[in-house]
């Protein structure tokens, strides 16, 4: 049996900002290696500033790594590859001076889709995310959840095999993101795309991903990779299942110390004594 070429392969990638020896030099990502199979859904999770978004940008060719190499479909990445990779960003990166439909068409224009196909494809994509009634709205007229749906549609319409999502639901409230997460699970299972997404939500990571990569605090390294063995599309019952709860707790254990490190805290007394942090702060006043 021959090994299939990974959709995305990251090998020994380090990303640093600032020259070597500069005291302000920041190593955002250190020696990360990861191989993602075609059709796989991988979540990147870790404390703030651990380089998850950096890794996503490197995969999409939006930045070049300081050292190491990234391959897409076995080919080294040298810049954005709009034919293969589409992005969904954290904050709304929709162009506010264009309607939702025009936003989708502009993306296709950039990517080089023939003019004749653009309108039909844009409408189909908006239909898929449930925004058929909002084609002629401007982004500012949409709710936060709708904006993210529109961004997703703008990425899907490019028909790339790979979708990279940088905290796509971070700006949304808990309920909206749950519903959007369910929709996404159904939608993505159907498209068979390779997906990497960055998230801060443990539940979201377990609910959506096949594998969850856990990062350490800065300089970010991949600490552990957890497999979520559950078929797509995932139903609402998975959301409340013991399995999801167990995996979520496992993730939390892995992340716990890293998040403290990021906050500049050592293992605090509160953590040691089991007292909640709020009680300690109360005592300090």
């Amino acid at each position: 049996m021959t090994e299939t070429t990974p959709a995305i392969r990251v090998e020994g990638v380090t990303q640093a900002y600032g020259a070597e020896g500069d005291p302000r030099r920041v190593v955002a990502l250190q020696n990360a290696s990861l191989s993602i199979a075609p059709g796989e859904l991988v979540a990147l999770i870790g404390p703030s500033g651990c380089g998850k978004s950096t890794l996503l940008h490197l995969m999409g060719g939006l930045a070049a790594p300081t050292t190491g190499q990234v391959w897409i479909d076995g080919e080294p990445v040298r810049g954005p590859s709009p034919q293969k990779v589409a992005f969904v960003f954290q904050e709304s990166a929709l162009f506010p001076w264009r309607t939702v439909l025009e936003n989708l068409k502009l993306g296709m224009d950039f990517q080089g889709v023939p003019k004749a196909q653009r309108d039909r494809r844009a409408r189909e994509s908006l239909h898929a995310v449930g925004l058929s009634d909002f084609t002629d709205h401007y982004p500012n007229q949409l709710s936060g959840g709708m904006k993210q749906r529109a961004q997703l549609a703008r990425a899907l319409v490019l028909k790339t095999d790979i979708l990279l999502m940088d905290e796509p639901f971070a700006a949304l409230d808990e309920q909206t993101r749950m519903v959007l997460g369910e929709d996404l699970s159904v939608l993505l299972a159907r498209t068979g795309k390779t997906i990497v997404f960055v998230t801060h939500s443990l539940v979201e990571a377990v609910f959506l991903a096949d594998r969850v990569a856990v990062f350490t605090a800065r300089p970010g390294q991949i600490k552990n990779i957890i497999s979520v063995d559950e078929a797509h599309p995932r139903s609402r019952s998975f959301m409340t299942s013991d399995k999801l709860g167990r995996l979520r707790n496992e993730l939390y254990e892995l992340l716990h110390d890293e998040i403290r490190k990021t906050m500049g805290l050592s293992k605090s007394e509160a953590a040691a004594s089991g007292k909640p942090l709020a009680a300690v702060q109360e005592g300090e006043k």
Partner: protein
Amino acid sequence: MNSSRLAQRLVQLGFLGAVVLAWYLTTMQGHINPLLLPPLGSVYREFVSLLETGQFWPDLRTTLYELAIAFLLAAGAGTLIGYTVSRSGYAIKVFDPLFAGLYAIPTILLFPLYVLFFGIGPASKIAMGATIAFFPVVLHTTSGLSYVKEAYVTAARSMGASPRQMFWNVMLPAAFPVLLTGLRMGLILAFLSILGTETIASFSGLGHQIVELGENMDTAKMFAYIVFVICIAFLLNAAVSFAEARGQRDLA
């Protein structure tokens, strides 16, 4: 219009009405020298005859001609230089403070020099108007283009936008509201400085006419011209505000 807006408008109208009424009352009895403040009625008659005879045309034409050329020069040079500067972080660091500093200089003091260079005709007014209007245009162009939200640029790049597509479809529309503000300020400043310099040294133009009437003690007609210029300024402002609001509505 809701009732509080209506009340605001009424107060504003009332204020203007009070000024006009005070003018009317103080000049009615002839206690005030009509050379200093002519009666409202005679200003009104002069204003009507000004419009009827159309004698304002040559001066209006001169002033608007100077304004148009000055504005086009300032807008062209300002956007072009602003765009060039915005292309490099280094140039922004060097030129943005430089232009901001020069903007703070009372440029109008250069006018005697401009008269020396360009003569007493329209050319010196055009040069003055263009110089003064250049700064808000260049400063707004630079800041508008260099502070385009990073997210838009990254998104466009990820979708494969070429540099040309990036400029026309992302940078320009994103910066457009700020560019328009610079152009509006440029136009208004050019108009002010052209009128002002016409009153200092010129052969024709609205400012020239007003000064001449003042020097000839033809105060009623001078006031009629002032009212006329106020009307022109009002129309100009309304037209520009309309264009700005439209541009921002279309793009925002």
